[in-house]
């Protein structure tokens, strides 16, 4: 529908124009990847072994911390009110917003991951596996995060509450994302099994996320 296309375009334009936007997320990702060796030590063999996990945790934290931009800005300036009175179904409207958020916030993380893999001394095969699992898994992080964003939308001092709500829900995605990456590197479990589960979780979140978020927004109305 033309309304949803307009919403997608607007959200993507805003993400690009408003100061920093996607690049701050990538910067945060880079910082997380930097501080792990500073905590753990520069042993390259160790870093290569835990590399996929570091990249996944960094991407997870970076996409969570950007979540409050998803709905709170529209709530504060009255745009959310108008979106609620639109004729497009609310479920589709929030799904479109989540899609725009994923493209402008999470996709840059996926693109940055291979470069960061070099910092962690990962082999090209490992880098490819991590990038692929991130590509498939990060939409799930965004769409589940959408639920938390909808629940917390009216809160003035969201702060850490939003990540606290969402992190437990994203644990399965983290587990299967790292599993699949490690399976590609070490085996013995073949890459396909955890990867298929990861893909299934993402598909589920694409459906559950918008419905739960729309319900949260409606119930959150005073």
């Amino acid at each position: 529908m033309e309304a949803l296309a307009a919403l997608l375009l607007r959200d993507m334009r805003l993400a690009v124009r408003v100061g920093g936007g996607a690049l701050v997320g990538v910067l945060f990702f880079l910082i997380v990847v930097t501080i792990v060796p500073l905590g753990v030590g520069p042993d390259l063999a160790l870093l290569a072994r835990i590399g996929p996990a570091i990249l996944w945790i960094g991407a997870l934290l970076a996409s969570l911390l950007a979540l409050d931009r998803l709905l709170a800005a529209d709530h504060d300036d009255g745009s959310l009110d108008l979106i609620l009175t639109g004729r497009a179904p609310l479920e589709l409207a929030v799904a479109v917003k989540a899609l725009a958020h994923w493209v402008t916030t999470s996709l840059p993380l996926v693109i940055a991951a291979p470069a960061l893999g070099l910092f962690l001394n990962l082999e090209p095969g490992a880098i490819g596996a991590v990038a692929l699992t991130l590509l498939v898994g990060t939409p799930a992080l965004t769409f589940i995060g959408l639920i938390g964003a909808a629940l917390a939308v009216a809160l003035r001092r969201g702060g850490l509450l939003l990540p606290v709500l969402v992190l437990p829900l994203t644990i399965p995605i983290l587990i299967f994302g790292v599993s699949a990456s490690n399976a590609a590197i070490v085996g013995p479990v073949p890459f396909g099994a955890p990867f298929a589960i990861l893909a299934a979780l993402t598909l589920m979140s694409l459906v559950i996320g918008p419905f739960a978020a729309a319900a949260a927004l409606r119930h959150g109305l005073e």
Partner: protein
Amino acid sequence: MRLSACDLVCVRGDRRVFADLGFHLDAGELLAIRGPNGAGKTSLLRSIAGLVRLAAGRIELAGADPELTVAEQSHYLGHHDALKPSLSVAENLVFWARYLGTGGMRPAEALETVGLATLAALPAGYLSAGQRRRLSVARLLAAHRPIWLLDEPTSALDAAAQARLADIMRRHLAGGGLILAATHGPLGLDGTRELVLGDSP
């Protein structure tokens, strides 16, 4: 077209904002909602717009599209202007025209009507409060819906802009529209019916 409401009760937190409220409004009529702050003017408008849940009561719209809810046939103009500062004036307006998608004036014409045509390419962040309000009024024109729910529409507008708004409202009513406006001051239109809120039940 007739909008009727009966036995409306609104509760916010532990406070009963209004109770046993009822009114009706026909096409071409303007209802001014008056009352002190906190009396529930905003809550009433927002409940018709579907943004606030009513504890009790019914709102019905007769003579309109039965497939759509009352909220989907209203255009809400609240305290906030729903403007994105980093988008231009024209981009903001075109977006809402497309999203609320019910036809109306072309965005360029709407900007002309409210006197913002020269600023169409300017980022909306540079606008003054009065200019933002005028852009919101342009939105009413560009995304046409029969019921207008206006919350303090004249705030931040100078005398000339208020006169222009009164004109725009007159034309909307002449075209068969309905307007509910919460306001403290005069709206500049004759024959306005009033609904006064504020005496605690």
